[in-house]
């Protein structure tokens, strides 16, 4: 019986496989190419994908826009460096500390922000981002102030670290891909679609929104910890409002697909970022033009095309009556229902005709 649910996951697993192939290809290609610039570009891409995915948890699953992801990324980075330098623990422990710090920050901030919606929420998180930026500069004893902090034992341009980061990015996307099929995932998508309706069928709207923020911030902070491992040096200039804006742009740009959209947004942005280091004086202008043209004239993003992504198709088939294995599984309804059935599709989960069949 549970096989039916498994089928939904199996269907999703095709996307997983594609993700693994894509990330593995990027990693192998970069490693084979061997240049440090290629490694750095891929590391930036992986980290950016993690940030994009973290925002996707908030924006894609519960419609909570955030302009503070990079601030939290910074919190994770500073916590990791602090923990490592003060206690000398290994990187995995620091990662746990960062994840915990991110989740805690999420719970702390989500409570006051819980009544804000849509772009008003974005503006509230904008204020948080600016406050965090100021805090990074002024809390000199913890952050080293504007002059930044060196990271002990950082593995700069290391291929294993690059592979780890890309594995994490792929893992988070795959996790999201399956999360939306799960019970909680579908409930939070219901919250996203209609909070009033969700509350009326007994869904704890506030709790789910809170958890989305906490998990999202934990992922962003974890990415910050990974960042310290490759950076060797962190300073408040790494964690600015502009970068947070870039993450939001990447998510909107990618479109509403939680998997391909995340990947497409992050990839497009990373390409632009890496490519414009050699375009004197034009990178900011290009960014501006891209914001106006791409967001304005491609409203559903790179992977959008008006296809609702959050459709979760539970492959349901009614249990067959024992001993009547060959009979039509469609249950018999009332007379009125039978009239409706007459125009229904034979297969219980046939797609409507306006959309072509997919694989």
């Amino acid at each position, binding site marked *: 019986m549970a096989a039916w649910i498994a089928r939904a996951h199996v269907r999703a697993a095709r996307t997983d496989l594609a993700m693994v192939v894509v990330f593995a290809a990027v990693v192998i290609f970069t490693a084979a190419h061997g240049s440090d610039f290629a490694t750095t570009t891929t590391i930036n891409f992986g980290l950016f994908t993690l940030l994009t995915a973290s925002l996707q948890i908030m924006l894609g699953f519960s419609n909570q826009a955030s302009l503070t992801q990079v601030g939290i990324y910074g919190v994770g980075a500073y916590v990791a460096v602090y923990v490592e330098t003060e206690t000398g623990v290994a990187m995995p422990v620091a990662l746990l500390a960062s994840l915990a710090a991110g989740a805690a920050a999420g719970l702390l901030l989500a409570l006051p922000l819980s009544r804000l919606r849509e772009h008003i929420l974005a503006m509230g998180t904008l204020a948080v981002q600016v406050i965090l930026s100021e805090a990074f500069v002024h809390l000199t004893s913890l952050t080293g102030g504007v002059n930044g902090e060196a990271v002990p034992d950082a593995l700069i341009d290391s291929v294993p670290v690059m592979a780890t980061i890309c594995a994490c990015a792929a893992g988070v996307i795959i996790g999201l891909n399956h999360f939306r099929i799960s019970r909680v995932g579908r*409930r939070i998508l219901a919250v996203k679609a209609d909070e009033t309706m969700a509350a*009326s069928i007994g869904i704890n709207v506030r709790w789910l929104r809170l958890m989305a923020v906490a998990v999202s911030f934990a992922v962003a902070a974890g990415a910050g910890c990974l960042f310290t491992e490759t950076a060797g040096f962190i300073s408040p200039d790494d964690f600015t409002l502009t970068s947070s804006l870039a993450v939001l742009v990447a998510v909107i740009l990618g479109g509403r697909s939680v998997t391909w959209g995340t990947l497409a947004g992050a990839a497009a942005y990373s390409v632009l970022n890496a490519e414009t280091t050699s375009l004197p004086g034009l990178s900011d202008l290009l960014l501006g033009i891209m914001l106006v043209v791409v967001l304005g004239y491609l409203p559903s993003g790179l992977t959008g095309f008006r296809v609702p992504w959050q459709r979760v198709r*539970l492959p349901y088939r009614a249990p067959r009556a024992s001993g009547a294995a060959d009979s039509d599984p469609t249950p018999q309804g009332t007379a009125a229902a039978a009239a409706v059935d007459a125009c229904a599709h034979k297969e219980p989960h046939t797609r409507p005709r306006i959309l072509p069949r997919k694989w």
Partner: protein
Amino acid sequence: MSAVTAVEPAALRVAGLCKSFGGVRVLRDFELTVPAQPQAAVAILGQNGAGKTTLLNLITRLVPADAGSIEVFGHNVLASAARHLAGYGVARTFQNPRLLLDETCLSNVVLGAQSVRRRRDGGTVAAMHRAAEALERVGLGGQTGRIAGTLPFGSRKLVELARALALRPRLLLLDEPAAGLSDLEESRLAEILTGLTDAGITLLLIEHRMALVAATARRVVMMDGGAIVFDGDAAAAIASPLVRERYLGAGFDQVKPERGKLR
């Protein structure tokens, strides 16, 4: 207060309920008790703006009350959040169905079926069976895989009803279930609703279509200006001069009782 509560708490007990929006008083000292036994349908009539939908929103905690008390099956509603209502055995539908239009009918109903966890409920698969049963109960058994947004309006209302049924309520609040339905759909709805009361669910329905009210409701309550002006059985309501004057209008005499077409 009454002797009934000692045996079993009433399905719904509203007392002294007040609600204003800005300067407009929508409900004033509203009182209504619906006993848990016998299960029956109670119809609420009233002109637009009489406070019917507000009453439903207050009961389901979608808007906060100014004063008064609401109890369902002995639970204090005003001390609970909207999400707790499903656990108390209360479900509702909306005048305009609120569905996830991008999802299949089944997914929509499974949301309800999985919402309140009870012991021996089983996992998602069991919830899917319950959801399919609920869809079948409203006559959409063959539509499980259909995307909700592609259904006609009337069927969407039925999907929403199925989702409410999947919560396994004891008290079902329906906000104009027949509005926007064709005559055929309306008669089918009447059958479904009758079946529900027979199955032991108390219904509280807001309805303008007298035919549906006459066919399903045992008791009719009429609201005007935020208070109850009439409370009696369906036949008495249609006969009542007060109801005629305030609600049905003078021309209601011509209406045919079975297939009443108002307005």
